[in-house]
């Protein structure tokens, strides 16, 4: 473990989770640093000050492993790692989202836990991970706990992470790795863009009928949400039915009922509802087209 200290600045880069949680157990004021793509922009100073715990040296926190009934994404796994990984189609949406996070430079540094712990309403991975029923693994000196992602994020930039906890992994149940998936993001320019609205969809089809749908919207509301009612409405639908495409059966009112839309410079509340519907329909249609074309 490398540890460098001065009166007000400590920078520690441990190699194991045990060492890392030890640091937090003694100095809970420490800031966890991963890709620093959210942290560094907060300051124009030439360096990080204060107490910093850099988790990128911890091997067990990087990479994607198969744990039997769970797939485990180490918290410090980067977007590039995810893009390059061999994963089932249920993860296509997560890969699409990863490819749209900032730029290649940002994807090479930014991490999955960083995105979740930063908990921006515009965090692109969150709708995808919600649609994968992901949970998060939080580790502290006193042990380890798992929380569904939907519980973990409680508000804009607010999570249930305790100051002494590290998000060591994101876990996806194998049972949710089914079906095909898609992701749509809307912004005002092509690259380096924070979403105005994004939608993620994962759909399972058996014998031409939708058997399961996991749909989520981000950036519309303070916290990304799953759309239970629309998901339920889709079940049983025949994918060769004449009322396809999705815009025929997804209602703006269902979306409005679920989200409490943000109204800001990037989009008015009513715009967000309309755009959310459009993107969601596109994501659903994308999934169904994959199935239809035998994908």
């Amino acid at each position: 473990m490398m540890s460098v200290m001065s009166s007000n600045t400590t920078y520690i880069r441990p190699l194991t989770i045990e060492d890392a949680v030890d640091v937090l157990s003694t100095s809970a004021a420490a800031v966890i640093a991963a890709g620093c793509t959210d942290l560094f922009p907060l300051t124009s100073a030439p360096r990080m000050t204060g107490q910093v715990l850099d988790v990128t040296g911890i091997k067990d926190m990087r990479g994607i492993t198969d744990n039997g009934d769970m797939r485990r994404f180490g918290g410090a796994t980067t977007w590039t790692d995810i893009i390059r990984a061999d994963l089932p189609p249920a993860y296509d949406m997560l890969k699409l989202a990863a490819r749209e996070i900032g730029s290649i430079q940002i994807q090479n540094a930014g991490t999955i836990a960083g995105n979740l712990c930063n908990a921006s309403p515009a965090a692109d991975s969150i709708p995808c991970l919600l649609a994968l029923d992901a949970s998060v693994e939080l580790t502290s000196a006193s042990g380890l706990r798992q929380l569904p992602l939907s519980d973990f994020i409680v508000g804009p930039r607010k999570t249930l992470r305790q100051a002494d906890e590290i998000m060591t992994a994101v876990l996806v149940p194998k049972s949710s790795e089914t079906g095909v998936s898609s992701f749509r993001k809307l912004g005002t320019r092509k690259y380096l863009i924070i979403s105005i609205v994004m939608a993620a969809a994962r759909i399972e089809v058996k014998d031409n009928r939708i058997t399961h749908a996991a749909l989520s919207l981000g950036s519309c509301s303070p916290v990304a949400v799953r759309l239970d009612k629309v998901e339920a409405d889709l079940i049983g639908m025949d994918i060769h039915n004449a009322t396809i495409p999705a815009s025929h059966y997804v209602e703006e009112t269902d979306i409005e009922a679920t989200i409490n839309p943000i109204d800001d410079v990037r989009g008015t509340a009513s715009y967000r509802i309309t755009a959310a519907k459009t993107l969601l329909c596109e994501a659903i249609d994308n999934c169904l087209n994959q199935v239809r074309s035998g994908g």
Partner: protein
Amino acid sequence: MSDQEQFTLTVNGTKANVSRPAGMRLSEVLREELHLTGTKIGCNAGDCGACTVLVDGEPVCSCLMTLAKADGCHIETVESLANGSKLSLLQQAFSRHGAAQCGICTPGMLMAAAPLIRANKAPSRAEVEDALGGVLCRCTGYAKIIDAVMDAAMEKPAMPMPVRHGAVGARVERLDGIPKLNGDEVFGADYWPENALYLRVLRSPYHSAQFTIGDVAAWVAKHDLISHVFLASDIDGENQFGVIPPMADQPALAVDAARFKGEAVAIIVGQSQDVAAMDISDFPIEWTELPAIMDVDVALADGTTLIHAHRENNILISGIVKHGDIDKGFGAADHIAEMSFSTSYVEHAYIEPEAGVAWMDGDTVVIQACTQAPIMDRDDTAKVLGLPVEKIRIIPSATGGGFGAKLDVSVQPLLGLVALKTGQPCRIVYSRNESMMSTTKRHPGVMQARIAADKKGHITAMEFQGDFNTGAYASWGPTVASRVPIHASGPYKTPNYLAKARAIHTNGPPSGAFRGFGVPQSTIIQEALYDELAEKCGIDRLAFRRLNALKNNDITICNQTLPAVGIDDCLAALEPFWQKHQQQIADFNAKNSRKKRGIGVSSCWYGCGNTALPNPSTIRLGITADGQVVLHQGAADIGQGSNTVIPQICADALGLPLAHISIIGGDTAITPDCGKTSASRQTFITGKAAMLAGQALRRQILRLSNLGDDAIIEMAEGSIHVSHGDKQHEIALSEMAANPYGYVLMAEETYNPPTEELDAFGQGKPYALYGFGAHAAVVEVDMHLGTVKVLHISAAHDLGKVVNPLLAEGQIDGGIAQGLGMALMEEYIPGRTENLHDYLIPSIGDMPEIEYHLIEVPDPEGPMGVKGLGEHVLIPTAPAILNAITNATGGARLYQTPAVPHRVLAAIQANNNVNEAAE
């Protein structure tokens, strides 16, 4: 315990041991420790990509990586690309294609492209865009960058250096290009003496506030890192600067009140760069926030607080042009169209934040910083410091984009003050946030206009009224107020005309110069009304413009007649594009309901040089005893290319091959004044001075050799060989005495464009010449999301004479990118979008395909016929795009820019409602 440990990096193949804090940004380590200043800092936040380096082969933003994480890694920076003096294929392609303008983004672009090129010798356009999507460029519009990366696989010959008399018109690669490509270029932040003090500026956190400052000495004593603090009370000269001296009103350091958020209040001077990381929240200052006036209507309302006590109703100045009789014109009209339109603050967003360094040379204050106007910097700084101008020397560093905002001083008086007071060298680098908060913007405009036409489509009258939010200080507000009425008609024959513009103070950031001085704003409303009138008259929109386009010797709204009007040539050049795309659009729209395409067109004209005011340039051209031809090229090259085109003009006038001319830049101690780089004046005015100097030197040489006018001049070591047919003459330079400037032969010529004062109604001769242009744009609108993609732009510009097509195309691309940004995404909101994360400029994926038409209608006043181009390239883009959106959507019109998706969708919905109601 020390907070630093030893780290070992392999940088460009060499092991480097670095002992700096573990949490230091890698970019800082590279620049400050290893002096690899090729890696640039544009934002320190991942938003611009200028700092891109390869870490173990992968591109990362070095500003976001800590030193600790780079330990043990292989780092590659831009300095690794060239092999000694031989540029890599990628760098050569950048040079060949003119892909580097100012050059500040270039290292990031090159490093982002390098891994792509390694893996893929023939990348597609889409692959290039994906690879370079993380690097922003504000100059080039990306087109040439994409071309270069796609053309980097093979060794290809460089553009040939032109032969004698062949420089003007040649596609010459930038003469100052190599340092921009290999990382050697010295921008404002790239040079500092080892022991330089480091400046940090304390700024107002409020739009409007009063403050009192407490015991500064005690605060300094408490902080080891801080050596000095300077306040307004330390200023010995006049604490007031401004680009238009009679209007100067901005304090270098605020005295007891701040009029905008970001106004400088105190300079905190530290021994090291650590001052930038220091917590200064305990600085002894007490603020009393005051209600802020942010909009012009509030500023104008009765009883509103005056931002400057002597400026009634918060009006800085108004401008007017009155021509003919508008009542008569509107009375005779068959059709009238009327509209209101408002535009946003627009930020220049050059990738280089202001930076510089200063030191004392005897009793002279020397300031090296990025700038567009070295002499104006000198004069304003001298005034603030209370020194005669001879005691200030400005050495312009390379400037990483300016677009108007680097005309006003920024760092210069602050650096000068500290160097003067401490006697020590000092440096400053603005943060992105500081740059955006404290420097000027494009004026937001609130405009109303109506235009009338007769049955046949001839314009009979136009009336325009615009209020421009000039922010807290005057800056270039007066220029906007005068230029807008002179240009708001567009290059169209308008027999009856009344236009008024006012610059209004608010507590927003000072609005200043930004490519076009208000004309891009007023052109939007004028060109929108032209579309409406064309429709009312039942005339094709392009034909309607051609019908009204000014012709040679027509009378302008200023009662001026122009001898070389190229607007109809420009519009004519767009015809094939216009016809082809209208057909394709009709086909596309018949098949698609969700996406709709449309086309729009707009013209522009723009007077080159200062409005009815003298603005001379002086060029010195000398030959040394050993036969070097030295051109003192004082026009600040902020990427637009003066360092290349001015020598091109000069070389042809002198009659030497371009390769023989070397240049010296705008150091105020050794180069005469070439004025400011603004108002599209440099190629015209400095170019003309260069032509005159070249001709004068040629005459001297011919006189010495007694040979005829078309003799051939050849330079040799220590001599000039002159020949005419079989007659020969040798001038032995080495035997001649050098003048005080060190030249044995020298010419110095000044050119000041002939203008005439305008009368009370703006009638006269505001400019010696105008340039003309027109753009047509094809857009695709997503009718469900309101998103707009610009697919194609055809750009026609009358340059009088094209000095360098490669560079002219680059200007067009860059102007289009900025115009596109202004139309679709750029909206600076004081206090909210002070970074490149929230303030969006076009990325590489947002640019259309561009076709160019370089038109030459030579103007007798310009050197070899030359007209200006720098601002023309931006003016027609936004109006053409906005008109195309209306065309695509079947009539949805925006009355506000930028046309962000939610506004476009609202306009589509409003238009649908109107159409439904009409049915």
